[in-house]
């Protein structure tokens, strides 16, 4: 195999991140349609997608999403937890599942009765 041929052979890999983003958006839309899901926030370094049932609370949810991920990173270092799979914050009424997939930081808001482990598995699906 010549070195010159390599880039052509790796062409499909260049599209992989885009596919992943599409998959992620698709998964999040499916998740949003589920019973008990309030909405989600998906952020990457250049953009953000927000889909929350109650638009008046978007800013509050966005601040919480960012704080959860920052606190998670802080606690990860403090407690030497290694790479974080997911963070769950439970409030009196709702809970938030937060995780990072590559450059994407995701927070899914849901009722407390929703199985967040199932949501996590869905999000990790390729």
């Amino acid at each position, binding site marked *: 195999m010549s070195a010159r041929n390599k880039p052509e052979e790796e062409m499909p890999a260049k599209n992989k991140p885009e596919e992943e983003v599409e998959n992620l958006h698709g998964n999040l839309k499916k998740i949003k349609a589920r019973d008990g899901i309030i909405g989600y926030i998906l952020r990457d370094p250049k953009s953000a997608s927000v889909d929350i049932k109650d638009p008046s609370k978007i800013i*509050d949810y966005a601040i*919480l999403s960012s704080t959860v991920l920052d606190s998670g990173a802080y*606690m*990860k270092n403090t*407690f*030497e*937890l290694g790479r*974080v799979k*997911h963070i*769950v914050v439970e409030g009196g009424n709702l809970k938030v599942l937060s995780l990072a997939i590559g450059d994407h930081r995701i927070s899914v808001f849901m009722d407390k009765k929703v199985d967040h482990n199932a949501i996590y598995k869905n999000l990790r699906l390729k």
Partner: protein
Amino acid sequence: MSNDMYATALKDTLTEIQKMCPDIKYSFIFTKDGAIIAGDGEADDTLMEKTVHSFQSLAEKAVVIGELDGLSIDGEKGKLRISRVKELYLVVKASPHADTTYLHSVTNVIVPTVLKLLEKIAPTPLKFMPSKQLIVDPLTGFFTGDNVQIDDTQLKEWSQHFDGKDVNEVEVETIGGKKTRCGVKKIGDAKQQGKGLILIPEKTCRALEAKKGELVRVKPIAS
């Protein structure tokens, strides 16, 4: 029953839980106000304080989802669970393969049971005074005296915890572990109020080896 005995009872409980569940690396308990009540001895003070501070910041932002009941982080090298038990928060760090359902059932049965028992023994709710982290600013000059100075609002807040008794003394502890007990009064200079400062006479700063801008832990002592 004194606060110390209450804390000892909870400390022993955490130690026994750890014996039952070797997957627990360490655990401690703090109040909603941020006062650390008891730890199993494995977690150091700095770690506990950092955790409480971070959790309280999160709790402020989490109002939109209701009062914070808990936080869990699953990492490749360990799991962290912070769960509410009545008016307290229990922090547990466990190994990555720990059975969290089992841990949850153990901690959330034993700790509330002990708390209930303590409430029966000491029906008056015990108050744990939250310590405060403040920034050192040395006081210089001939007339600085021996008292440290902190915000009046903070003194009033502590006073409320002591059922209106004045707070005339504080214990100051540096990150290095040096401690001193000294008189306290409100900050006189309006420009220095509301900044989270503790003005400490230079002589005391030298004794504590505390430098300007450093954080110290300040505990109130009621008169």
